[in-house]
């Protein structure tokens, strides 16, 4: 489980006015967003029409992160806050820590890198790891490499458990503390004073039972539960209420190369023993890692695409900012920008940069930097 400094939890506990809680919910929005460039980079590294299962798994998680970002924004609006999405510091620096230094406890470095088992294990699953990961057996290893990774994994787990000190708390706890504070403040007086018109409720893009208006404490609880359950599952099951594996276990399917299925013979009742989930490394593009626009020579086609994707990505954040600041219908403009960004990146990753320092050919990759002008 990624953890954050206990001081943040204490900060939430010390909140006396709802306004003081706004910053913490803003942090939640930033955290949910921060994972998106990481996962998208993995997704874009998959060659067109290949690794379909792996692609669908990563895509499904990205979409849920977008949902979580929207839920957190609805929550902030519900209690009279103003989501700030169009800021340079809204976007993490890659490689680097996640917002609130989440994962500092285990030196997590979020990176923009191609989809490899190592990236899934070291970054994707590290980001999504539940507080107490279920020890789900992997049946029928297809390679010793996978077995080795699992071994590492268990060692990490045990190390983690022992590392569970007073200094750090979990993301689940973070959300839980936010909820407790909302509940406490709401008992004193109604804190759901935000304009309901600011709530994003758009059944075109998300099901109504996942993205709904938050106008009272019950809805706030339901909303927070969705974020936590979809991300981490529950302490007793790897699947969420819709029977979908939580993100951590979904990524596990790619890592272990098997679908997660019910297995009564396993202690936890589940095993990675279903249909194969292939990750064919020969169909993964070697995207330049943690690229910045300035890493590409001025005047090169890669630089133009880097600058353009940065501008489109930033326009998308601007559009989302407007969406969550009084104009929910603007989500449609944001959707248009998402697809424009996707098409640009699909072309960008065909730019061969030649061999890197290790002598391996690299292709261009989007930097995900916030810019204000198209230059």
């Amino acid at each position, binding site marked *: 489980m990624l953890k954050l400094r206990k001081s943040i939890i204490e900060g939430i506990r010390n909140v006396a006015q709802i306004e003081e809680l706004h910053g913490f919910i803003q942090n939640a929005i930033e955290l949910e967003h921060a994972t998106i460039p990481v996962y998208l980079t993995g997704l874009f590294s998959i060659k067109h029409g290949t690794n379909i299962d792996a692609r669908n798994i990563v895509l499904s998680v990205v979409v849920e992160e977008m949902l979580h970002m929207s839920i957190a924004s609805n929550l902030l609006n519900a209690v009279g806050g103003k989501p700030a999405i169009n800021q340079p510091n809204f976007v993490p620096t890659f490689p680097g820590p996640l917002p609130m230094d989440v994962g500092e406890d285990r030196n997590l470095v979020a990176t923009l890198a191609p989809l490899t088992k190592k990236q899934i294990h070291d970054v994707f699953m590290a980001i999504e790891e539940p507080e107490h990961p279920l020890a789900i057996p992997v049946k029928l290893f297809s390679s010793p490499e996978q077995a080795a990774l699992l071994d590492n994994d268990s060692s990490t787990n045990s190390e983690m458990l022992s590392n569970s000190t007073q200094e750090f708390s979990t993301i689940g706890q973070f959300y839980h503390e936010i909820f407790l504070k909302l509940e406490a403040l709401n008992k004193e007086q109604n804190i759901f004073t935000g304009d309901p018109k600011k709530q994003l409720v758009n059944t075109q*893009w998300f099901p109504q039972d996942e993205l709904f208006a938050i106008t009272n404490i019950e809805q706030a609880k339901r909303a927070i539960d969705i974020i936590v359950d979809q991300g981490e599952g529950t302490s007793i099951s790897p699947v969420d209420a819709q029977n979908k594996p939580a993100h951590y276990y979904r990524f596990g399917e790619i890592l272990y190369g098997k679908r997660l299925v019910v297995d009564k013979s396993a202690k936890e009742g589940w095993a990675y023993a279903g249909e194969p989930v292939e990750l064919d490394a020969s169909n993964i593009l070697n995207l330049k890692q943690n690229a910045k626009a300035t890493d590409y020579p001025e005047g090169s086609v890669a630089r133009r695409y880097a600058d353009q994707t940065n501008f489109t990505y930033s326009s998308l954040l601007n559009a989302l900012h407007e969406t969550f600041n009084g104009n929910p219908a603007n989500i449609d403009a944001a959707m248009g920008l998402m697809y424009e960004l996707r098409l640009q990146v699909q072309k960008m990753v065909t730019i061969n940069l030649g061999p890197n320092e290790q002598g391996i050919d690299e292709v261009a990759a989007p930097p995900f930097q916030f810019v204000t002008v198209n230059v």
Partner: protein
Amino acid sequence: MSYLNNVHMVFSGRFQSDVSTVNNEVTHFDNETFEPRFQEYGNENGWWNPCGSGAFRLIDCRVTQVGYANGATTSDKKEDPVIGMLIGGSNEQTSAKMVDLDPQMQLVSEIWGLTMRLTDGKTPHFFEGKFLPAPFRDISFTRIENSAGDIGASAIYQSVLEDLTWVDTDSSPFLQELKALSEKVGKLSVRMMVYGYNMTHSDPEFTLGQVSGVIGPALENEPDTFISGRRFAPANGNVIAQSINFFNAKVNTYYPSVKAMKGDVGGQEDNASELPSHSLNVDFSNALPLINSQGVFANLGQLQLVVLTQDFGEETMVLSPKFFVPVGDPIAYLQHDWLKQTGGLVSIPISEGLLPTLNSGPLALLRVSPTPEGIAPLIPQEGASASLPNNTILIRETQEGVLVRSDNVVHRLNPATQSQATFYASQYGIPTSLDIEITLQPRSQGTSGGPRAPFINHPASAIQFTKSLSIPATGNAVFTFEVTDPKNPRGYIDGQLFFLSYTPVGYADYAQYQYDFIASLVFDTFEVPDSPTWADVKDFMTQYGNLYPVMSRMLVDLSDYDSVVKFRALLELAFTLPQRDPNFMPVTRDLSAGKRQTIIKWLTEKDANGNYVLARGPKNVPAPEKAATETCNSCEIDDDLPTVDSVTAQTKTTAQQSHSLKGQNLTSDSSTPVGSKTVAHARFINSKKAQKGK
């Protein structure tokens, strides 16, 4: 007043026009004969950018100069903080789009969905407005004489920015003047001269070009998309021997108090004791030949604007000074970075004394010095020496200073509808009454497809209009025409094109830009079924799937039922947006209202349980399994692609293919001077490349 006056802002930078090129060939619209290779890069296939997205973008466009009502200009940031700021597209919407009218009319391509803003990168916009879609005008295919680039063309986009919003103009004297002038009408006038477009797939600058922009006030009773003023016109209606193109000038009036400046319409002096001042403003940006795509002008010698006191024609030499009155100083067009700094604009103060002369005689551009060394003689005629005599009229104003143009060039019309075009008429820049004749152009085959192309401009019965229009003394009149179902005369492609020409009555020598016309795409009638099925939409959706691989091979294959169903919500959104939204589908804006309603109905119909029906067809037979979409090679950015196969191929590519600065069709229209110039130019470029061993 428009952008062409003393109060203006110049910006320079680059533009991107990522047009797709599979649709450059009208025969590619035929689903029956469409071949997969038409989606691949290459001559006779999908041409030079089959995977284009249609995006139009402004990139790194910086304000280089501003001008004030008193005629002063500055390029110094300390004097006006807008210097160095950027004019950009929207930073919260998808890119604008470049849109052809039709594969058989690729010479009135419009910019749709463009929002323009002034920003310093911190304040998102000091002003922002929406560009009224407008086609390029006054295209010249022989603009860059000695370019190593692929395209030597340039053209002008002129339109207005609507729905203006202003934020904080306090710090800029220029913005205060501009805002004060624009407040009443709520629009700004904008000109973008685009040139130096790069069509070489393997070049980092591929699909990019240069833009020289100007923004100024827009006043009431003015056309939105051209200058109602003084027009310099090549006598042959095309381009003079030394590649000087059509260009425009305007006499402007300013009143003593800047805030009271009313321009030239309905102005009232605030202070009657002071006289108004005047300027002649001339736009050379699209006029004079360039030697490269950096905007450096060819040396044509010393050029001087004059008013002719007698009616001499273009190419007149050794003109005695008694027959002209000089206006202003020689044009400074050879100064370093003149185009980038000034936008090619010249402002000349006009005294009260000169005004009557200016308002009653034709303007001309005179070469007053001998031909510079190394420049070809202007007119190789008998007895002329290599060094041309002084005082040669290079180009002059239209016959008797007459100008008549329509503000509304492009029309996309559903059957049984009316449309309107506003005509403006003036003489020596002053509104005038004028009769014009309007005629339907003869049957022809348009700008692509060669001899296989369907005929356009028929049946004539599908467009009804009066053949003459009297413009009253106010200088403008609305022309209304009606269209009916053309009944699918082109077969595999919807609707029909109708081009209406217009000419002023009584001016036999009136020189007119070839595409000053009214171009209408009239859709076929399409009955919307009560319960549409995939069978009802499949044909036209397949056409889009064929023509736009950027969508069909990278996102949603519109010819494939399952793919369309998967993206149902996104398609519903795109097909229901307002036409001016940059996300509007189809990008090409060539879907009739009937077909649009049908697809929307099909996409949105729900059953009793609230589930989308998405009916397959009368028998609900599942479609045959389609192979997974293959990687789109043509979308890949590959510097190993061959650029030019042969002289012929290159000629055809340049000549036939379209983008913002399109080439004329070679086969169907090879008799036009523009087309032949393009061919000659392409051959020249190709021979250069061959020399370089490319």
